[in-house]
């Protein structure tokens, strides 16, 4: 293990990849508590969830049920107060901020609720920034970005800035970015909330096709029960608990 970040020195190569051999996510008794002045708020209450390597899970529940907290812990954005979290075979339960930053960069892909791109980067650069922040492989990253944009039907939009793209196109670029680092797990937080119904369904079809064709695990957080039809199963949450 690398002393500085607790990960292997060469970027997880000493860990067997989760794809094809084990779960992409294991969460056991994960708990997140926020201390208040004279009490505490339990945002996630002993949650247990396992997402297999090529599984697509819909995480459903009302606002404040803990969906985003669960996803944030699974993605290394938040640390659990207690419990065990394993992503792609790496136990991140006790990781500090620097180690979690690396987890987000190398193990997880994110598509957030709002359309989420860096406004001063072109579509292609929004994908390449993932490589720039991490391994800086150069030519292989450029080839991968071009391939992803091609597959997402955005090859002719590669040089466009986000402001020059439609909502659906921006969401597709965000999906491409989430796949750029060849993640173990992609987390979609309300990926269709900013889109109309027809475009939302089309984007969900695209997400399902991309995840399944690559054998990548995904969690899709949603309020919308219609979204669940694109996933392998649904997990319901309420009051911070996985039901």
């Amino acid at each position: 293990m690398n002393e500085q970040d607790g990960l292997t020195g060469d970027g997880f190569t000493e860990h067997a990849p989760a794809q094809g051999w084990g779960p992409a996510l294991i969460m056991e008794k994960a708990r997140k508590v926020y201390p208040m002045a004279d009490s505490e708020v339990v945002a996630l209450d002993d949650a247990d969830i396992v997402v297999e390597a090529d599984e697509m899970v819909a995480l459903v529940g009302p606002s404040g049920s803990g969906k985003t907290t669960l996803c944030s812990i699974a993605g290394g954005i938040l640390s659990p107060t207690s419990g065990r979290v394993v992503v792609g075979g790496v136990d991140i339960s006790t990781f500090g901020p620097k180690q979690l930053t690396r987890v987000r960069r190398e193990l997880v892909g994110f598509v957030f609720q709002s359309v989420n791109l860096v406004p001063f980067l072109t579509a292609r650069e929004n994908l390449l920034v993932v490589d720039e922040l991490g391994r800086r492989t150069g030519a292989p990253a450029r080839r991968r970005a071009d391939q992803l944009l091609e597959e997402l039907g955005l090859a002719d939009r590669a040089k466009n800035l986000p402001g020059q793209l439609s909502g659906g196109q921006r969401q597709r670029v965000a999906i491409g970015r989430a796949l750029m680092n060849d993640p173990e797990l992609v987390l979609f937080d309300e990926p269709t909330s900013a889109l109309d119904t027809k475009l939302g369904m089309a984007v969900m079809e695209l997400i399902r096709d991309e995840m399944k064709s690559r054998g990548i695990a995904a969690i899709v957080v949603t309020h919308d029960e219609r979204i669940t039809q694109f996933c392998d199963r649904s997990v319901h949450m309420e009051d911070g608990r996985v039901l």
Partner: protein
Amino acid sequence: MFLAWKEMRRAKARFGLLIAAVGLLVFLILFQQSLQNGLLTSFTGALRNQSAEVLVYRTDGRRILQASVISPDLTEMVGRDPSVAAVGRITQGTFTVTPLALGADAEPVETSVIGFELPDLGGPRFLTAGRVPENTEEAVASDADAAGGFAVGDVVRIEPGGKQLTIVGLARDAQLNVAPTLFVTYDTYRAALASRNPDAGAPLPNALGIRPAPGVTAGQAVAAINALSPELDALTRDDAAEQAPGVAQVRQSFRVIFLLYGFVVPLVTGLFFLIITFQKAPALTLLRAIGAPASRLVASLLIQVAIVLGGGLVAGVGLYAALARGRIGGVPLRFETTAVIVWVVLLSVGGLISALFSARRVLAIDPYSATTGAGVGR
């Protein structure tokens, strides 16, 4: 570098305007530095660049050369002091002079004329051309006035009276009271005075130039002379220039201006990047959420600050180099390398320090904000 450069490329106008603003401020600072030094040199350059190490005024002259009059008994008293090796009388007056080299219709100009008894005790210290005057028909002018009809070989005429002097040398930075200045021998001065007013007697010296005795420093000689009589006011050459009436006030005024500019450049840079950081907080939050180390984002910010400051400094110094030549209202301007180095270092450090507020904002970004939508860019 990737993020810093891409952002700057996509916001050329915004960053270009900041670089221009920094460049303009740098130019103004350097230009005013030259103006201050040029102004002070025009005021007192003849004192700083005369050859006597120590000057002695009469106290009631308030360190104004023309207002000080040294009586013969005071001259004798100073000459007898063991700290003094030699005394040279110096006199100074303002004459109306016509620079004949400018043609028949040349306008007469008010000119400071300094008469020295001994060339090494009140004569010009640094000659940039020619030689010191050797007879009553010759003078050395300040090199700043060469283009105004005071070049070597030019003839000037003292009005009224018509005594003519030929310029035989040029002294570096040797103006007095922001006027053309001539160094002449004591006898020449007396002749010029007589030319203007035949009834004028022999002039008393306005100051004494002192050569300290061997082993006596200028400071020791000053102390010894000042102890002789309350009527004597001895000063080292540099002090005579620095403590001339008005010099401190000019320096103080410019110091306030420089202080303001010294704050404005870092303030402008710091505020610009703070505003930019606030504006792009959603993008920075997104980048943190997808695994950008905070240190990488801070490095990107500092690269932009360095480019803006570097560009602004190059632009400002370039403009200064192009325009800080010639004269403004008789005040000579020149490119001052030391001032450039000092200000480049000060402004670079100040700019980088001011950018630390933005860096702090970047370090405070919580990637969790990306999940709430608060920090996610569209």
